């Protein structure tokens, strides 16, 4: 992946086991978000392949990637403005329903039943992340930590096979981060593969089955949290090379 001649991501090859929690870590500018953007189709890649459940999904448009079962959240929250928490999550259930302009304008039975199913399912997902009581609030009026959870509920409402979380703990306080760790385990237990980008190392080492380390758009290490903590290249990337005086 290149941005105006700058290689943002090159020769990163990794695979994620189903039903696992994989963390992608690395210093700022390492290409972590770019990797998620490429996988979710937000930006088209220039080279390479994205394979998902034995299927080539490289170059998929975002909505096609979502249909294939790849859901994501955004590092800088991107909730829908002027919409309630519930409505934000309801949007993700559209993919499961089909009523179009005609049946919606005439309020045909198909659109009524669609609307009912969308609402019921969205409430289930809000309850799952523990926000059932916030359903009717304007999403953007809620505290930051809550908005992060709405983003997760919205991604889960797609019934994805894998969910890509871009810095889910960013801006959260320690208690909220603990709640997030529990939630991520719950998501995995539902049978959903979790990939997350995170800077909070204690969270990463706590919950991850495997960790991938990027630096300058290259993969420099991959392994269990214990292996990564001992890896010399990783320590250098984060702290700089030790020099002997």
């Amino acid at each position: 992946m290149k941005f105006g001649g700058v290689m943002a991501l090159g020769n990163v090859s990794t695979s994620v086991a189903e039903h696992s929690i994989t963390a992608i870590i690395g210093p700022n500018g390492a290409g972590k978000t770019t990797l998620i953007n490429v996988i979710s189709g937000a930006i088209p890649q220039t080279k390479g392949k994205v394979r998902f459940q034995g299927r080539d999904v490289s170059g998929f448009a975002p909505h096609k990637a979502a249909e294939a079962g790849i859901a994501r959240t955004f590092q800088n929250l991107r909730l829908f403005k002027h919409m309630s928490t519930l409505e934000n999550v309801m949007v993700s259930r559209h993919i499961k329903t089909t009523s179009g302009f005609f049946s919606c304008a005439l309020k045909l039975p198909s659109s009524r039943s669609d609307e009912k199913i969308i609402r019921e399912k969205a409430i289930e997902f809000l309850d799952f992340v523990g926000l059932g009581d916030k359903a009717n609030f304007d999403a953007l009026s809620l505290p930051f930590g809550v908005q992060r959870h709405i983003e997760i509920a919205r991604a889960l409402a797609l019934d994805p096979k894998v969910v890509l979380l871009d810095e889910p703990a960013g801006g959260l306080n320690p208690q909220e981060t603990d709640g997030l760790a529990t939630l991520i385990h719950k998501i995995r237990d539902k049978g959903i593969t979790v990939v997350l980008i995170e800077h909070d190392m204690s969270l990463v080492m706590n919950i991850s089955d495997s960790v991938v380390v990027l630096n300058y758009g290259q993969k420099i290490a991959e392994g269990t949290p214990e292996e990564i903590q001992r890896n010399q290249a990783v320590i250098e990337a984060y702290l700089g090379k030790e020099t002997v005086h």
Partner: protein
Amino acid sequence: MGRANVTALIVFGIIILVLPFVLTSPYYLRVMNFAGIFSLVCIGLSLLLGYAGQISIGQAGFFAIGAYSSGILCAAFGQSAWVGLVVGLVVNSLVAFLVGIPTLKLRGHYLAMATLGIGEIIHIVALADTEELTRLIAWIGENAGYAPEAVSRVLQPYKALTGGPSGFGEIPTINIGSWVVSTPVEWFYFIWFVVFIAMLLSLNLIHSRIGRALRAIHGDEEAARAMGMNTLPLKLGIFVISACLASIAGSLYAHYVTFISPVTFSINESILFVVMVAVGGMMSVWGALVGTLIMTILPETLRVFQDYDILIYGLILLLIMMFMPDGVVGLVQSFFGRGREKTG
């Protein structure tokens, strides 16, 4: 749709039924009839602009296509009003579709630019014998090997159809079965019945998955795409619907006024439609209705100020935009504490 909207629709229906008994003067009824026709255009624009967040500065063009389709087919070819109406809808859908495909794919103000352009093109085509167009066609003809005289001879019947800058008249009125819509009161009920249906269908649409999808696109298109939404067909759909509502308004206008000329369909009219929606409040289709009524009735009431009317008109617009950024309906909604929730 929520209880508030059902109540509002019922009240709206009752007002329509009762108003002709209160407003007995044919002059007032005429003003109301024009407001009804224009509010059809504005309801469509409100769906496009307020809900989907896509701006069109070419609604007068779609309005014109509807009016000319009805006018030409009925006046020159003796077709029934319904044929004119349907042809207008088909032509408008095609034009909106073809303009929409390339422009709605892009972000930013491309749709504004494209609709501005298409509105102007339609206006020039309606003018028919502006110098530029004649010169352009003559130039194309010459380059294709035709003599300029032959070209203008071919153009003659076309000019006769649109009437050029002076327009044409003698468009027959509409008849529904044996009912010939003719008196101002009959027109009032007919026009406002259509507006009522348009409001009902729009409110249904807004409070469905389609309406929510459009608002999601407005809120954050990239996020909407990431949540599995194929945004182009949705944007295209609502653009075509807005063009169709303008087309119906155009057909009604042609039959009501019985005379059309290009002046009615200039860019000023397109901008006026956007202003109407903004004044009423973009967050709600009710805003389109209220904005159209204000902007149609206001100039009429300001006539008592004679030469100063335009000054006062401008001042009122300025004050509305400064102190009611969400329009008149937005202000009323926040007054009742519902400003935060989208009530449509």
